[in-house]
């Protein structure tokens, strides 16, 4: 089986609203950028296309019927992954590994600003018999999880606030990010209480945007680019949908997705073999919970490491140099590709002002957001290994 590399990336940039463009026009822009970056003509050179999205986000029944035109995918094999883009990347990886497809595109898009009733759409994702009739804003689920996580690990709200300050600041150096800001710990801790223990600034605001990646098999990748980013391992899974049965203090889905990806990539000692990570931070505490789940640090250590600056851009283990979801914005189903995009740019040495020194291997991880317990992980490297 051939190795698989990312050979092209395209991003529109993320913005709170984009009333001037339709979602199709946004997707066309990201796709055009990715194909130019990969130096491919989608009408000739792409064997299969993967779209990641969800009907209720887009507001169309069968949204995927509306995507071929703007991706160059008319009358070409198209797959729908109704999940986060990182699971789309895993699907692209598998398609190429079958040997039947040499070049595969994966995209995820968000036009969240088109949704007038976001809270109701999220609430519609709750169990209709057991949970939904109780009412309330479904983000209380993040509050439930954070309470338990802080309790079990001794992590503090201040340490979570450090994540917000770091990621919003990192976003200032990322032209693709919607929410770059220079905040203080007090700004975060004194922002309005939302879903205890979460304050307003602990949550990622919504954003519009699209990311398109082009992946290729080894022999095609080497022809297309001098800077392929190799997908060395992927993993993903979903926990039970019963909220009541989740292990609230831990992100089990992330632990198991990481185990799967590490095994595939031959990673034995994650903190040593991985130089930087892009992890889900939809809510501030999630970054810490995920770092521990990914074994990039020990249980209960992530908050302390963050406080000490280890996860800063110039720290020993930079985390979310892109700005994360807190800085780039919550684009439903695009979060995983936001993380992959940054990892790919860093490994290519094309991250501009954010560029990290001498990075060989990075990790991208995603969570599908409230109310899911679905996560995915990809290990990416400059070398095939």
């Amino acid at each position, binding site marked *: 089986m051939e190795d698989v590399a990312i050979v092209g990336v395209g991003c529109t940039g993320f913005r709170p609203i*984009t*009333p*001037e*463009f*339709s*979602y*199709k*026009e946004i997707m*066309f822009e990201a796709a*055009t950028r990715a*194909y130019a970056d990969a130096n491919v*003509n*989608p*009408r000739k050179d792409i064997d299969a296309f993967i779209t990641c999205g969800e009907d*209720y986000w887009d*507001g169309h029944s069968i949204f995927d019927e509306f995507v*071929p*035109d*703007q991706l*160059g995918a*008319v009358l070409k094999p198209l797959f729908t992954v109704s999940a986060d883009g990182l699971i789309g990347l895993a699907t692209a990886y598998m398609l190429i590994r079958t040997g039947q497809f040499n070049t595969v595109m994966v995209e995820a898009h968000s*036009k969240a*600003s*088109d*949704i*007038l*009733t976001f809270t*109701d*759409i999220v609430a*519609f994702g709750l169990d*209709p*018999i057991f949970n*939904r*009739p109780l009412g309330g804003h479904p983000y209380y689920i993040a509050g439930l999880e954070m309470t338990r996580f802080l309790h079990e690990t001794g992590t503090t709200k201040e340490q979570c606030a450090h994540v917000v300050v770091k990621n919003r600041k990192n976003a200032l150096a990322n032209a693709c990010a919607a929410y770059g800001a220079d905040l203080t710990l007090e700004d975060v801790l004194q922002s309005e209480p939302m879903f205890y223990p979460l304050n307003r600034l602990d949550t990622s605001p919504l954003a519009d945007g699209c990311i398109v990646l082009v992946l290729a098999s080894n022999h095609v990748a080497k022809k297309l680019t001098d800077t392929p980013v190799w997908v060395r391992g992927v993993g993903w899974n979903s926990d039970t949908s019963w909220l009541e049965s989740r292990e609230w203090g831990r992100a089990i889905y992330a632990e198991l997705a990481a185990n799967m990806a590490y095994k595939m990539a031959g990673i034995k000692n994650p903190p040593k073999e991985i130089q930087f990570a892009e992890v889900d931070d939809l809510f501030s505490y999630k970054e810490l919970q995920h770092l521990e789940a990914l074994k990039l640090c020990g249980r209960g250590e992530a908050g302390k490491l963050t406080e000490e600056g280890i996860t800063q851009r110039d720290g020993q283990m930079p985390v979310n140099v892109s700005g994360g979801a807190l800085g780039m914005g919550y684009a439903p189903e695009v979060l995983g590709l936001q993380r992959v995009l940054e990892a790919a740019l860093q490994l290519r040495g094309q991250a501009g002002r954010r560029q990290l020194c001498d990075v060989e291997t990075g990790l991208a991880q995603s969570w599908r957001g409230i109310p899911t317990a679905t996560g995915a992980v990809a290990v990416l490297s400059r070398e095939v290994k």
Partner: protein
Amino acid sequence: MSAKIKKYAGHPLKSAEIREGKVPTARWRPKAKYMWSAGVAMSRFLNELKNGRIIATRCNKCGRIMVPPRVFCEQCFKPTDNWTYVKDTGTINTYSASFIAGDASRIKEPIIVAIIDLDGASPGMGIQHKIGEINWKEVKFDMKVKAVWKPPEERKGAITDIKYFKPV
């Protein structure tokens, strides 16, 4: 049904029994509301409908004049090049007569729907709309039709600014 069991106890469920709450169910009306940005291409198209005109875009590479207008050519995968008006007349490409209304009720006078290839647009480019002022049995392939517009003051920048197409 198992070979050993010839008859189950009870009776098949009736919809009335479900309505009356004799069967446990969960009800919910989703509050799913959207306001889609029409975008560059469709915004211009809708604004031109208010003017009683149909606008298209042209791709210089394949030469197609496309309705509805789009900012990219899906065949050549490149941005389209210029705007151009097409006529509000065309020919019927295919048609159907719907005897069932949107609420699934039966209607006597069918709604005639057609795909209309618009004059001035490339083959395979046109508009799906209703056909009026004709008995559905009289509708034919390649029949020439023309748009019947709402009066200017009633137009809202919507596809329904054209009431229907009628034979010419």
